């Protein structure tokens, strides 16, 4: 189910949908019919149909009737899936504007990557901080655990991106940020040294005392 799959894998997936959408429990006639149209996938479709039939047996037996808990709380797995949703949604919106920028499947999306130099400066102004500090966010130079949820929500709102998307970027492994080369002068490329704490980054980015206080209270 990868989105970068070959045409063959896409055809196989389409054939699998045909089997499972046609009947709850695939029978010999259905499998034969689909295999006739996709003869190159005979063994794969047979294996798939057997697994579908087994799962149908399970449902028939009511073996796994489950009801999720209500309320707003979500598990870490659902939370991460939501991050992937927002990452993907953002990537697709960038793709719509610039198809050549399509990131590979699973690659983290950097919400700063689509910004021009002027937009980058405007963002710093909206955040009421300096471009140095925004660069640290962009290049993941700040220890994620030291950034408060208040700050993250504030930054996401000013950037007009879902907080899950910003979190996915800030929490990702360092060094994989997608940053346009135009931002890096020879002596200004992102370093790969130790990350700063949020407080260190606030204190060492040329912000005014008032700005520092505001950020540290978020």
């Amino acid at each position, binding site marked *: 189910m990868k989105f970068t799959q070959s045409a063959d894998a896409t055809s196989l997936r389409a054939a699998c949908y045909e089997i499972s959408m046609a009947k709850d429990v695939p029978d010999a006639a259905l499998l034969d019919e689909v295999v006739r149209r996709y003869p190159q996938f005979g063994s794969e479709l047979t294996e798939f149909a057997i697994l579908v039939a087994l799962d149908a047996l399970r*449902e028939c037996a009511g073996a796994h009737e489950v009801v999720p808990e209500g309320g707003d709380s979500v598990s870490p797995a659902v939370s991460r899936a939501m991050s992937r949703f927002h990452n993907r949604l953002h990537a697709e919106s960038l793709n719509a504007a610039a198809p050549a920028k399509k990131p590979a499947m699973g690659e983290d999306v950097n919400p700063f990557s689509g910004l021009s130099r002027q937009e980058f400066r405007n963002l710093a102004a909206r955040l009421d901080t300096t471009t140095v500090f925004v660069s640290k966010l962009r290049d993941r130079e700040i220890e994620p655990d030291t950034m408060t949820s208040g700050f993250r929500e504030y930054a996401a709102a000013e950037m007009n991106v879902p907080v899950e998307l910003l979190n996915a970027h800030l929490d990702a492994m360092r060094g994989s940020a997608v940053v346009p080369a135009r931002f890096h002068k020879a002596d200004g490329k992102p370093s790969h040294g130790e990350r700063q704490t949020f407080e260190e980054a606030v204190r060492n980015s040329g912000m005014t005392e008032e700005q520092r206080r505001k950020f540290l209270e978020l």
Partner: protein
Amino acid sequence: MAPPLIKKTAQGDLYSRPSSVEAQIDEVAKLSPPELKARLDVTNPKQEGFLRPETLVHLLRQGIATDSMKTFNVVLPVLLKRCEKTLEGKIFNFLPSADKLREDILGQFAELLASDGRGDIPDELDFYECRFNSAFRTFWISCVREVGHSGQFAAVESEEELDELFADEEPLKGISDSLHNDTPETRLRMKQLLQAIETLPKKERDAVVLVHVMGFKEESNDLDEETAATKCNCTGRTIRNRLASAAAKLDRFQEDQ
């Protein structure tokens, strides 16, 4: 009225939502945000007001198309929580990487939702508005097959070439009956049979499903006819041996219960 789906069947007919889904979509369109939230909080399918997953997919697609973050921020977690629960019942814990596999499938599904209208099958989500459970079953089984865990429901393989075995296949014949007669008794019987089938080696399990669930003949004199033997790339005798061995095991299993 929701716009019609655009995906077509192999016969060229348009897929369509069940009328109950169409009615629910119309009903939900009139709800205020707090009313929608209250409906989303109903998690039991048997409870009044429960929103079907097909309806949730429609709402999500609509939210994405209209860039309504409010909509998909309330609908997405509900749908993903349901999918998470489904996967807990499908991807068994005895797999060494079950948690990771479930999480990856959930993540891939979330990406599928976000890439509506794009990708290799742009109208793929039409399936999910039509018959969510069948479509999601396709999705997770395909994911499991891709990572090479499709044998997860079967025991470790061990098969010797034997002379033809003979066994009472009565336990196997009950599978088809149970499938087509949904009563509390057949459900219980199916549950027991299923536990037994999941302990079978993959080759025996495949033979049982092909013959007794899908209705393939064991073998045929017609060389053009697909049978369990041609599907498993073996002789009819081997299929009969596998069925006999499976029947004996199912019989023993049921006696032990």
